[in-house]
């Protein structure tokens, strides 16, 4: 150990969306806060959206899979036993730096799946309890959208007007209207106007590879500058190895490792883990010399949910300029979100209408079919037929918790600091497969109703594990859950989890809105009750 720093009131591990919310509120409340982030700052100019190579660099440099990206700040993930690859990004802003900024509140039914559908577990609180916290974080993120969404009891209001839906959105809406199905202009954490530290969106359509225009709501722009001004100490290129605890099972701080391999101890009264649904349980498991902490229930690392994703591409016989953003979601649909047992599965999925990207999206030269299909004269024919004329309905299906879907620590694979890599054990359930089959069939109908001359189904995309949830589940019972409804560990009273790990269920929604809202609810409860938090001597 190269040294022990001065103690602080609170440590936040991870500088992504949940860590940003936690640190911002804690420092405003007068606590001294140290944030430890394994990645670095990424400035807008680093992203290639405005450069011709943007489709090239998304294949490696900005790929969401850490195993493909292979940066020193990434930890590798053993996916040999998983149907889906988990996706993430290490940096100030976390995976939001390369997210699509799809901003979706969970539906009211998502919090009551046991009561309504007899599966999984209800949440300890309801939609109405969380609604004020949604509004709070939406105001910070500058969410754009149209009030009055008929899928929500309160219409899911947004602080900024909706982004344009363009030719693609109008074409998709036409098909949905012909079928009498629900759709709504997309809600996105992308400002349609200049907003605080965010530039106005320019519809470049490269959101998923990082916004080169500073126009996507990411915590490096929405939260960290203000938090640092308020006194947060943010350490980058700093990888947490373990949470330290005393003999009374109280957290005393964390050990972190710098890029030179030096170990440091940061003491603190409170430790908050915000390292995502893989990184947080990994940290808990690595603590106490690898024996793990906070795991009386045996649920640390279990119930991993990753939202298997499918898509339907439709091709039309007219120019739709389908490389234009946002990307981002242009439209959403919740027509088939709720349970209908006649379909043969429980729960449902949210659809998002997306543009199709640049010309590379229509070149299939990676060995799935004969080269003569992908190259030669067919290359030109394919591009001419599809480029600018295609768009996608993406399908995010609710992934129900299963204790056998879990992470463990690898016995052989390590990161660049020598720490054990996570090993993913994950099987797509029969319920999910039936759900995706049903939804892709409906999405084909939607495309055909819109006039598509060709459709193509992608039944399950392996690189789709954007949404990492459930691995430190919240609940009232310490025998069956890891944290209470405010993210406080049952077994370590001054250790908190405030990321998607705490989710009892996944919903069928992109989770960032709920991750940030739950983090806000948790941290404000912590601040209110901080005098009662039992800290180490």
């Amino acid at each position, binding site marked *: 150990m190269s040294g022990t720093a001065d103690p602080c009131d609170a440590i936040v591990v991870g500088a992504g969306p949940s860590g940003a919310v936690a640190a911002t509120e804690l420092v405003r409340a007068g606590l001294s806060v140290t944030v430890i982030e394994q990645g670095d700052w990424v400035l807008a100019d680093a992203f290639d*959206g*405005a450069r*011709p*190579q943007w*489709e*090239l*660099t998304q294949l*490696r*440099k900005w790929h969401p899979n850490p195993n493909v990206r292979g940066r020193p700040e990434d930890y590798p993930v053993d996916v040999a036993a998983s149907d889906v690859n988990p996706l993430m990004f290490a940096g100030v802003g976390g995976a939001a730096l390369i997210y699509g900024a799809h901003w979706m509140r969970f*539906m*009211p*039914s998502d919090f009551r799946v046991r009561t*309504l559908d007899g599966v999984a577990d209800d949440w300890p609180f309801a939609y109405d309890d969380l609604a004020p916290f949604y509004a709070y974080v939406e105001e910070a993120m500058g969410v754009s959208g149209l009030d009055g969404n*008929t*899928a*929500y*009891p309160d219409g899911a209001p947004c602080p900024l*007007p*909706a*982004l*344009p*839906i363009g030719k693609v*959105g*109008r074409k998709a*809406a*036409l098909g949905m*209207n012909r079928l*009498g199905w*629900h*759709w709504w*202009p997309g809600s996105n954490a992308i400002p*349609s*106007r200049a907003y605080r530290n965010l530039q*106005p969106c*320019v*519809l*470049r359509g*490269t959101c998923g590879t990082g916004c080169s*225009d500073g126009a996507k709501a990411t915590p490096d722009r929405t939260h960290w500058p203000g938090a640092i001004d308020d006194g947060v100490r943010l350490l980058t290129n700093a990888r947490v190895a373990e949470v330290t605890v005393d003999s009374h099972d109280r957290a005393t701080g964390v050990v972190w490792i710098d890029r030179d391999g030096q170990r440091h101890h940061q003491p603190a009264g409170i430790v908050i883990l915000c390292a995502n649904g893989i990184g947080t349980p990994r940290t808990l498991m690595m603590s106490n010399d690898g024996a793990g902490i906070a795991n009386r229930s045996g649920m640390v690392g279990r119930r991993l949910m990753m939202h298997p994703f499918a898509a339907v591409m439709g091709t039309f016989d007219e120019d739709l300029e389908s*490389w234009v*953003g*946002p990307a981002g979601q242009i439209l959403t649909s*919740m027509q088939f979100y709720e349970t209908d047992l006649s379909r043969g599965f429980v729960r449902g999925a949210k659809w998002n209408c997306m543009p199709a990207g*640049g*010309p*590379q999206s229509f*070149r299939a*030269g*990676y*060995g799935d079919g004969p*080269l*003569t299909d992908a*190259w*030669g*004269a067919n*290359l*030109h*024919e394919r*591009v*001419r037929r599809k480029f600018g004329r295609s768009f996608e309905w993406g399908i995010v299906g609710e992934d129900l918790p299963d204790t056998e879907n879990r992470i463990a620590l690898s016995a052989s694979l390590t990161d660049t600091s020598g720490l054990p890599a996570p090993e993913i054990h994950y099987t797509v359930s029969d319920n999910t497969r039936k759900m995706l089959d049903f939804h892709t069939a409906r999405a084909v109908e939607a495309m055909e109703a819109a006039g598509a001359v060709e459709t193509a189904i992608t039944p399950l995309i392996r690189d789709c594990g954007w949404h990492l949830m459930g691995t430190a589940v919240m609940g009232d019972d310490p025998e069956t859950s890891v944290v209470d409804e405010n993210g406080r560990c049952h077994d370590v009273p001054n250790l908190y989890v405030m990321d998607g790990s705490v989710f009892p269920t996944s919903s069928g929604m992109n989770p960032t809105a709920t991750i940030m809202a739950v983090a806000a609810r948790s941290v404000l409860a912590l601040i209110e009750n901080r005098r009662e938090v039992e800290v180490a001597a």
Partner: protein
Amino acid sequence: MSHALTDAERERLATLADLMVPGGQGMPSAGDIDLANGPAEEVLHIDPTRLAGVQRFLALEGMVETLADVEALAQKDADGFADLGVVVANAYFMDAAVRQAIGYPGQEARDASIGLTDEDRALLQPVIDRGAIHR
């Protein structure tokens, strides 16, 4: 910018690329844009992780006169061909003349503040008229 590929490798790449990307249908061929030189070198400069696979594939021996010949080589080294495909396709579609030929201005900046149009709102009215769908 120094060359990542040797003269012999670039010559082999040019042969392969012209089979993979022939001219016609109003589109330039790989040779028309001199893909094996400047464009491919630029791609390898931006993403040097592709170089080893490309070089390995280019070193495969065998007569290459048709696309079927390329396919036969790809059976011997699928990973190397995948890297070659990335380099050829990106070098081609990053070229300004190619983009112009397919009517692609690139990921250009546009004004998002126009928001929803009257046409968009009219399309949405039936959804509003059907009322709430939440449970």
